[in-house]
């Protein structure tokens, strides 16, 4: 249940690529939901201009520990700065957009 680096080519001149990491707990319902919700957001708002790493805590627990993961699912925006963290199954889209700094960029 690990998906890594869904990299989509983008227009580098227009917007900086958003680099994100999503920590999930195997096939836990919230985690499955989070992946689906995030993919939908990316499709809708980033138009492929993003980089997403999905880390399965069940498989890499000590890495998750080192990264300070407490609850799952948990999304971290690594760049561009400022960094942001969102926890939950990302069902509240507006909050996710706000945290990712994508508010107002909706077409």
């Amino acid at each position, binding site marked *: 249940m690990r998906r890594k680096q869904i990299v989509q080519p983008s227009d580098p001149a227009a917007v900086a690529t958003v680099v994100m990491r999503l920590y999930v*707990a195997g096939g836990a319902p919230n985690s499955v939901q989070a992946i689906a919700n995030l993919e939908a957001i990316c499709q809708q708002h980033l138009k492929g201009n993003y980089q997403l790493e999905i880390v399965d805590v069940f498989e890499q627990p000590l890495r998750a520990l080192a990264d300070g993961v407490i609850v*799952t699912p948990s999304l971290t925006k690594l760049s561009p700065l400022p960094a942001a963290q969102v926890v*939950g*199954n990302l069902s509240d889209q507006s909050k996710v957009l706000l945290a990712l700094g994508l508010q107002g960029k909706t077409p």
Partner: protein
Amino acid sequence: MNETKRVDPQPLAKIATGIEGFDDLSGGGLPRNRTTLVMGGPGSGKTVFSLQALVNAARQRGESGIFVAFEERGREIMANAATFDWGLPALAEKQLYILDAHLSPTVVQSGEFDLSGILAILKAKQEAMHAGWIVFDGIDVLLTLLRDPIVEMREIYRIRDWLADNELTAIITAKMDSQTSAVVNYGFMQFMVDCVIRFDRRLEYGVPAHRLQVTKYRGSDFASGEFPLSFGRSGIEVAAPEPPEIIHEASTERVSAGIERFDAMLGGGLFRGSSTLITGAPGTSKTTLIGKFAETACQRGERTLFVSFDEGADQIMRNLSSVGIDLQAHVRSGLLRMYSGRTEARSAEEHLIKLRALIRDHQPRCMVIDPLSAMAKAGGISAARAVANRLIHLMKDSKITVVISALIEGNDPQTEATDLQISTIADTWIHLSYLVCSGERNRALTIVKSRGTWHSNQVRELVLSEAGPMLTDVYSAGGEVLMGTLRWEKEAEENARQRQRQAEFEHKQRELEFAEADTRARIKALELDLQRQQAELALYTLDGEARVLSSSEREHELRRMRGADLVTRTEPAAIPSRGPVKPRDASGSGTRKKASQGE
């Protein structure tokens, strides 16, 4: 015949927390490989309790543990732990892992989350460190973010299942509103876990009082009351219940109280391991008596603990040295430990816990507390009473000979009987009082009671001098007890009278001796007279005889010389009559006359 075999009940496996008192009241500690819920309001000691259990497990048995901090940051926990003697930084490297599970306030929440991720992380960590303990501290902080009681419950069950699968001894702490005394959303947690401990912090007479109560312990007995706890150097200490049965060994060994005549009044001293109460008004020399006992104990080479309240150790030693009691030397040699406690804003419980720790550290054979009544200053009398009782039993259990003073306002030991009611549990009760008489205030010592020994019923005067305290007899004259100068005067008067009586006696004796000698002399003189007179008499008699003899001899000689016939000397005829010799008839006629007259 269906005979069922009787099976011995298997006691629940427990694991010691190493927390003073708690292991006693819970009958061995927490349930091993089970979950304990620790509830309480803010600042009631939940975090310290759970962290301390982990520290003790690591230090005493080398067991590893994980502390998941949901409420405080890891470094805050380390800073708080540094106030105790745990050496947490050293432990934190290997045996005690503190997971900072504090969710930053900048974290945005979008939708539901769960704990399956962190549990997976903890599982990996547990396996890596072979941890046997885990603490979820402040789990409510994280779960309330879910804002859905049903979801919260689901996560709690998730934790329970996870704990059961992993065979961990777990402590979950959760905040509890002390007013409603129920964890708002976690009531069901109490049913889920095997052991529930409630912590409480409240103000009693303006003094914060910490309490702990085990409200549930599946499959085990436990002391169900509320027990006071305090925070010491090693963390939490719980005042565990004393065993219901009193098992004190009664020694017949006597220990000197320091003053010879006092020992004599007690029938040879205090019993080893007994408790003595000295009551008295301020300034009746309670501290001096106590100091003398402590000094004497040190001189016997016995470890001694001197506990004073509201008076510094230096001041006490200085004051005692003025009456010839030297404690400094014994403090230097380490035999004597002085402890001065402040009683303001400290509950009696805290004092007890402190004294318990002192006894454990110093291992004294003799102990003094001056004055115990100060413990009742803050925190209410009923608590102080219970503490005083426990303290005396604690010292008896430890076979410590103890002398306690208690301040009493007023002068009658019967009416006051001490606020702390220690007079009933103390073995010996000495009362010091003042007698104010003719411009003087003098100290009187009486033994109110002394269990199991003969003791004097006499009042003695306690006299202080540079040579130390001593007891003297008092004079009772005309139904009044005389002390001080009056006693001295009485003594002087008595001495003078005695001397006078002696002189009079000697004088009379001499007089009688003279009289006797005189009489004897007179007897002697009379005897001499008598002898003289006897001798004279004898001489005289002899002379007389000689004269008679010589006259008869002379007559005889004369006759012989005249040539008369030798008639018997006795013939009176030879002697011539005085008148002229008358013829016979003449005399015959006279007779006849008479006869004729008769015819």
